[in-house]
C-alpha cells in the first residue's frame, strides 16, 4: 500500500499579507526612485539649455562684422531648436532644449524647452555632437535689425564647392574648422554645399536667384546678403519663422526711427525717409520669397539716408553690403 504524502506548505495569512504589502511598497519605492531620477535628469537638461541661451549672449556683434564661439560638452549631446512667430507677438519666440547620451549610448528624452525671446537662432531642428560652433552676423534692413546666431555641429563637416571669395573670407575669418573650402575637382566627405553647380550636391546655392535648395528636404528658401549663411545652415522651417520674426523686429525699430525723426526735426534736420519707412512697416512678408522685393525698397530708403549730410543721417550702417 502506497501512502501518499498529503502534507502541504502551510502559509499563514500574515505571511501572505506581508509578501503582498511588502511587494507593493517595494514596487512603489522603485517606481518613485525611477521617477525621481527622470525628474533630476530633466532638471539638469533644462538647466543646460538655459545656460546655452546665456552662452549665446556674448555673440552679439556690436560693431563687429561677426563673432564665433566653440561650445564643448562632456558627452555626445543633442540640442533641439524650435521657432514660432505666432506666440509672444510681435516678436515671436524660439525654444531650445537639450539631451545627452546615456551609458548605453542612447539619447535620453529631451529636457524642458527654454524660451528665447531676444535672439534669432538659425540651426537645424536638431544639432548633434560633442562640440558645437555658434557664430553670429549682423542683419541690416537697411539699419541694423539684429544679430543672427547660427549654430552648427563641429563634428559634421560642410564642404563648400566654388564658394565666392567674400563668403570664403567671411567664414575663414571666423575660424570654423568644420567648414572646408574645395574646388570642383577635389573630394570631401560631408555635406556638399555647391554654388551655382548641381552635380552630387546636398545643398545648392543659386546666387543669381538668391535661392538655396536643400536636396534632403526638397525645399527652397530665398535669402539676401548675409542671410545666405542662415539659409545654408538652418532648417527651412526655422529659417522661414525667423524671417517673419525679423520683419516684426524691423517694424518695431522703424517705429523708433519714426519717433527719432521728430526729435531730429527740432535740431534743424529734415530726414525725408519717414514716408517710405511707414510704407514698409505695413508691407507683409509671407515667406522668404517676398524678401527680394522688400530688400529693393529697403535699398531705396538707404540711398535717401546716404544723401543726408553726416549730422542729419537717421542711422549709420557701415558694415551693410560690405
Amino acid at each position, binding site marked *: 500500500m502506497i501512502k501518499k504524502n498529503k502534507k502541504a506548505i502551510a502559509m499563514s*495569512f*500574515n505571511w501572505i*499579507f*506581508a509578501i503582498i*504589502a511588502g511587494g507593493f*511598497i517595494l514596487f*512603489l*519605492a522603485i517606481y*518613485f526612485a525611477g521617477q*525621481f531620477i527622470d525628474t*533630476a535628469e530633466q*532638471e539638469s537638461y533644462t*538647466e543646460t539649455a*538655459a*545656460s546655452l*541661451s*546665456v552662452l549665446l*549672449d*556674448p555673440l*552679439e*556683434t*556690436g*560693431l563687429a562684422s561677426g563673432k564665433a564661439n566653440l561650445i564643448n560638452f562632456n558627452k555626445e549631446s543633442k540640442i533641439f531648436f524650435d521657432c514660432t512667430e505666432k506666440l*509672444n*507677438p*510681435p*516678436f515671436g519666440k524660439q525654444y531650445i532644449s537639450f539631451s545627452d547620451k546615456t551609458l548605453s549610448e542612447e539619447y535620453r528624452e529631451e529636457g524642458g524647452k527654454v524660451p528665447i*525671446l*531676444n535672439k534669432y537662432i538659425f540651426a537645424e531642428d536638431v544639432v548633434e555632437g560633442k562640440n558645437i560652433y555658434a557664430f553670429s552676423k549682423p542683419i541690416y534692413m537697411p*539699419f*541694423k*535689425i*539684429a544679430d543672427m546666431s547660427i549654430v552648427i555641429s563641429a563634428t559634421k563637416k560642410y564642404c563648400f564647392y566654388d564658394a565666392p571669395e567674400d563668403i570664403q573670407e567671411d567664414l575663414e575669418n571666423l575660424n570654423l574648422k568644420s567648414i572646408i573650402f574645395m574646388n570642383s575637382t577635389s573630394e570631401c566627405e560631408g555635406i556638399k554645399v555647391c554654388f551655382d553647380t548641381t552635380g552630387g550636391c546636398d545643398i545648392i546655392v543659386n546666387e543669381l536667384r538668391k535661392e538655396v535648395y536643400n536636396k534632403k528636404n526638397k525645399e527652397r528658401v530665398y535669402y539676401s546678403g548675409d542671410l545666405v549663411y542662415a539659409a545654408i545652415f538652418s532648417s527651412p522651417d526655422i529659417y522661414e519663422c525667423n524671417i517673419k520674426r525679423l520683419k516684426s523686429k524691423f517694424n*518695431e*525699430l522703424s*517705429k*523708433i*526711427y*519714426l*519717433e*527719432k525723426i*521728430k*526729435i*531730429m526735426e527740432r*535740431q*534743424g*534736420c529734415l530726414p525725408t525717409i519717414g514716408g517710405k519707412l511707414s510704407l514698409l512697416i505695413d508691407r507683409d512678408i509671407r515667406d522668404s520669397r517676398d524678401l527680394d522685393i522688400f530688400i529693393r525698397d529697403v535699398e531705396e530708403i538707404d540711398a535717401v539716408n546716404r544723401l543726408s549730410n553726416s*549730422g*542729419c*543721417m*537717421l*542711422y*549709420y550702417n*557701415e558694415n551693410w553690403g560690405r
Partner: protein
Amino acid sequence: MRKNKKSQLKIQGTINHRFLDLGFSKKGQLKIQAHKNSKKFLVPESSKAQLKIQAMTNQRFLKLGFSNKKSQLKIQEMAFMIVAVVLFFALVGLFVLSIVFVNIQDEATRIAEEKTLAAATSLADTPELSCIAAKVNCIDADKLISLVNLNNSQYDKFWPFSSLSVIQLSGFEKEEEDLVECTFANYPDCDIFNVYDKKVDNERAIASFVALCRKDFQNDRTYDKCEVAKIVAGTEFKRIEE
C-alpha cells in the same frame, strides 16, 4: 424513542444557546429547529449520526468566530503599520523634494541673474539703443526718448528684464523720488528714462555705466554731445511659496 426525543431536545437547547451567542434572531432559530426536527430528528435510526453532525457544526461555528476576530485584529495591525510606513516615506520624500526644489529655485535665480547681466552689458550695442556713430557701449539718447515715447512699446516682451531705465548724469546725486522723468516735452532737461516697468515684487537691479550721446546744435553746427549714464535693469525672482 422517548430517550431519543429527550436527547434531541437537549441538543436543540445547546444549539439554541450557541445560535443566540452567534447573534441569530429567535425567530430564525425556531425555523431552523422546526426544519431540522421535521427532517432528521423524527427518524430514530440516524439520530446518533445527527448528533455528531450537529456537534461538528457547532464546533465549526465557534472556531470560525474566534479566528475571524484574531485575523481581523492582525489585518488592522498590518494596515496601521502600512499606513505608518507609507506616511514615513511620504514625509521623507517631501523633505527630499523640498531640498531639491530649493536648489532648483536657486539655480533658476542664478541663471536669470546671469541672463540679465549678460543682456544688460550688451544692451547698449543693441539696434534699439546703439549710437548711430561707430561707438562701443554708447546709447543714442534720441533713440532712447523715442522708445520711451512710443505709445504701445512691446519691448517688455523682448528683453529679459522686469524693468529697464537709464539715469542721466544729472540724476546720479538725486534721490529716486526727486528724479525728473524724461518725456518728449522736457527732453533733454530730465534725469531718468523709464523704458518700462513690469512692477514686480521681488526684483534685483543690475546697473552698468554707458555713454549717452545725443545730437546737439551749436554755432550752426550739429555735434554729438556725450555724457556718462547708468543703465538699471531689474530681474524678477520667482518664489515657490508665492
